[in-house]
């Protein structure tokens, strides 16, 4: 038979739709995750501008700073595309470099978020301080957690490829991770617009 080895991916099996189980699982999960972020964002919107005490968002949000970190996260999506292109065309070195860049940009974004959070905290904004603190930290915190999980996933893929367990034949695994990564980026565009850009 043609199926050869351990780890031969399920994507090789025929499916009814021709789409692999893994890819369909990811799309379906993302649909569900849309509702998750949708609920969080709706709560943020419902509570927008209803804090009874400061610090208020317009006093504390640093739009230029966060614009830079948003750009960093969006650039990571570009790197992700290049990494996928690399493995799809059998260029494993290019794949590892760009996937490493994706993870690094994601980590840079998370570092920026950590700095932002501590900065806000020093200015008196905490989870408990007011509704803005409560909804801001929980919403952006859950997004940050998604980025963090994505970074762990990408690093695992790099390690797998270094140990020879990931080859161009498994490029779809990278594609599926990419779907997740791009989704998390898109969610940030919505959060960034809603929380930072639209004036209070």
């Amino acid at each position: 038979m043609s199926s050869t080895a351990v780890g031969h991916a399920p994507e090789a099996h025929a499916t009814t739709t021709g789409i692999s189980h893994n890819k369909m699982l990811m799309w379906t999960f993302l649909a569900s995750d849309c509702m998750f972020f949708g609920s969080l964002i709706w709560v943020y919107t419902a509570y927008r501008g209803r804090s009874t005490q400061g610090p208020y968002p317009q006093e504390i949000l640093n739009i230029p700073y966060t614009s830079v970190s948003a750009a960093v996260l969006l650039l990571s999506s570009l790197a992700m595309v290049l990494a996928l292109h690399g493995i799809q065309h059998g260029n494993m070195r290019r794949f590892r470099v760009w996937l490493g860049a994706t993870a690094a940009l994601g980590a840079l974004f998370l570092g920026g978020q950590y700095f932002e959070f501590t900065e806000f905290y020093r200015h008196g904004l905490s989870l408990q301080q007011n509704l803005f603190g409560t909804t801001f930290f929980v919403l952006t915190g859950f997004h940050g957690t998604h980025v963090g999980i994505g970074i762990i996933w990408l690093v695992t893929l790099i390690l797998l490829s270094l140990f020879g367990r990931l080859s161009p034949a498994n490029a779809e695994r990278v594609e599926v991770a990419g779907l997740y990564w791009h989704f998390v980026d898109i969610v940030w565009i919505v959060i960034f617009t809603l929380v930072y850009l639209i004036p209070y």
Partner: protein
Amino acid sequence: MVESALKLERARYERSALVEWLTTVDHKKIGILYFWTSIVFLLIAGFLALLIRTQLIVPENTFLGPETYNQVFTMHGTMMVFFVGMPLNAAFFNFFVPLMIGARDVAFPRLNAFSYWAFLLGSLLMLSGFLFGAAPDGGWFGYANLTSSKLYSPGLNIDFWVMGLQVLGVASLASALNFFVTIVNMRAPGMSLMRMPVFVWMTLITAILILLAFPSLTVGLVMIMFDRYFGTNFFNPAAGGDPVIWQHLFWIFGHPEVYILILPPMGMISEILPTFSRKPLFGYTFVVFAGMGIAFLSFGVWAHHMFAVGMGPVPNAVFATTTMLIAIPTGVKIFNWLGTLWGGSIRMTTALLFAATFISMFTIGGISGVMHASVPIDYWQTDSYFVVAHFHYVLFGGLVFAVLAATYYWFPKMFGRMLDERLGKLHFVLTLIGFNLTFFPMHFLGIDGMPRRIYTYSAGMGWDLWNLVISIGGYLTALSFLVFLYNVVRTFQRPADAPADPWDGRTLEWSIPSPPPAHNFDVVPVVRGRDAFWIEKYGAEEVVGPTPERHGPPTGGSPQRPHNPDPGQHAGHGPSTPSGHGGQAHIHLPPPSWFPLSTAIGLTLMGTGMVMHASDTLGSLGFPVVGLGIAVVVVSLLGWTFEPIHEEAHA
């Protein structure tokens, strides 16, 4: 040969029975685990209902104090929804969906096992509250800020509830993802969407509802958790927070949840009625699209649970309208079921009796539902026993009757034994009388103004007689379940001799032995129309659409119609002939795995640690246990990722 290749594969994993069940990834075994677990939970939650009825049997009773009563009714509701209704449906999804679409397993067998273990352990986590006298006591709806503020709910009760539900939510989501992919992606050749059995259709729609509805419950529970553990202000009115937000989040989940519970039973009915009427389902397309219509509308009706909150006339009117609209697709289904029975050569089996009674009981629940879709009437009925009567007609008269029908119908396929029909009919009569005696008088009490959730009432309110009748009805219903249990025990004392097709069935699960072999189908069936097995048995006047050729790499076996080997059909796939030599006919079955169980243990440890953190005595251990849980999850997932699952059983 198929069998020898299988034995080879099995022999490598020869283990004790206990280990086999703990590590199984076989959808049929997981279905059986779901089945017995939820039957046990049904008995526990039913026992809680008896406690409630004993407390209310006479006015000013002191059998249960108010604190205990709150725990008992909260756990009765929470368990019946999350520990009984959903997993009983899941038991049948697991066992029958792969069989009905001609698949050898679900798309992600280990994820499936994980769903079961997370369900079991999450349920036990919440139930363990009873051991500490701190079972959840905030109602199954857990309204904030009663539940979100430590001021109003200082004990661990709500912590058990929140953490248990979060674990159960993960289990449900994993299961829904799995069944969505399985149904969309693993159908046998020829099993087009509009040839799928209606039960499979309803499972698919239910999976979509779970995927889209559960996140809002998750978010709501996260908010309650943050308010309780980290002092946030989500539901703190002093800081501008709004407890009504919880109600929105909960009911955006909660109303689709009603259909998550009732659509699978509608699917079961749509399998059972045609079988025992010896007719195809009347208006198949309408039944399928009505299911989709119900699912779509279910996201636009949540606020009818909140008419009395004070949203104002416009939202109330909108939600009243959408709610009434749901009666249309539901009515379509009811008439289709009647049309299925009409003119059929009906066999009065226990399964048919339960299934046909489902229609009338569910209709009563539906009619009272339309009544309180009307806002002024709802003002009168809300939070009264009328509502209790309504949803028990839907969930007991609907879900439980259908699941009992399905149990009598599918028991031979699951366990290779036929349940006793005479005991079954006794069970049916007792359930029918007991159920109606319990729940019909609640309409009168509700109209008469008796509120729900009260632990006692004064004499002289005019409620004494009906409460007595209701409690007697409750005991009678309990008795009917004892008859059922007796039937099950008796059945297991007899030899397993159920034929493959005891009911002259219509769908693919009846084409294979009872109980089915581990690999389900010796050869993957080719489907030539709706009621695929019926067509193979009796032919069809007209088979609509082309009979497909199998293409793509064979996943094991070769495409043939049941009972009609036709090797010429796949001449292009020589090596996949089942009678070939050299082990080419390997059917790939995924090996057992410990990682689903260990991942579920890790997840539950995280929830347990959170509950411990909130306790006075074990508080310092809380976060270390959460950390341990995270570590167990991470290690398990790594093991899961690297575990070889595609070893082939070459001879």
